[in-house]
């Protein structure tokens, strides 16, 4: 092998290694971004299901006779629940005695669900059998 062949082989080796390293770096960085994204998506899921789990925990304990009143109470209650860092949540009472829970994270977008106090026995024509649940009581059961 003469000098020219050695030089060409070295240049090929350097270029190939450099390309390979760049691809590795790019793959590693996109894997880290994907992992962070998955983590945030998981947090969104937890936040949304956590709100729904609150309704399940409160089930069959009417907070108001009128479902629109129950929806307003529930919106305030769910908005006051703790939330993971990096997420934001908007809870609003909607027409039709529904509550809209919207959780979002900057990098992954948002998820939303409409929840109904009537579907969990939190309102209805029957008079409440217990006193309305206070924030302190509900926080303690979370």
């Amino acid at each position, binding site marked *: 092998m003469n000098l020219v062949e050695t030089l060409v082989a070295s240049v090929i080796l350097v270029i190939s290694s450099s390309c390979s390293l760049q691809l590795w770096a790019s793959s590693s960085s996109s894997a880290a971004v994907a992992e962070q994204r998955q983590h945030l998506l998981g947090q969104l899921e937890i936040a949304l*299901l956590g709100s729904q789990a609150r309704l399940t925990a409160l089930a069959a304990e009417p907070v108001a006779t009128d479902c629109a009143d129950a929806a307003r109470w529930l919106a305030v209650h769910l908005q006051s629940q703790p939330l993971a860092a990096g997420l934001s949540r908007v809870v609003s009472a909607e027409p039709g005695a529904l509550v809209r829970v919207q959780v979002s994270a900057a990098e992954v977008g948002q998820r939303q669900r*409409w*929840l109904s106090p*009537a579907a969990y*026995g939190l309102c209805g024509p029957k008079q409440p059998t217990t006193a309305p649940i206070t924030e302190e009581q509900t926080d303690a059961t979370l």
Partner: protein
Amino acid sequence: MLSSLSLQAAALQSRSQVSAGQRLRQAEDGLMSAAQHLLADPLSVDQLAARVGETGQVGPVAYRLVSLTGPSWQDTAEAGAPQRGRAVATLELLASAEQPRPLQAAFALELLRQAIPEGLAPPQLVALRELGLRGRSAAVGAP
């Protein structure tokens, strides 16, 4: 070089899986919202059977009540105790631009009826649980 390319291919595959998962979760959100909307009126529990085939809309979600089975009632353990029952409603998310295929999910409606001197009071809905989207069991619960 080849291993780098295979790593890139794996990253692309993982990204497409994440986006498919996101679409599925949005469909689940839509179906759960539809079930909640269907049951937003407390007087409607008794009238649900008559609403099979009806369509509804909540936010951007359009749905149809496909079927309702039950309610089936448990035998009460003691006299005067409330009786527990369950009905199963199947809802379909109507096809849209984002979700071209109609998706269905079943929901369990947990019911309770109190014993009163005249017999039993009308059933009261006390909980709603997702039974599964297209056969996939749902992980609904407290974090």
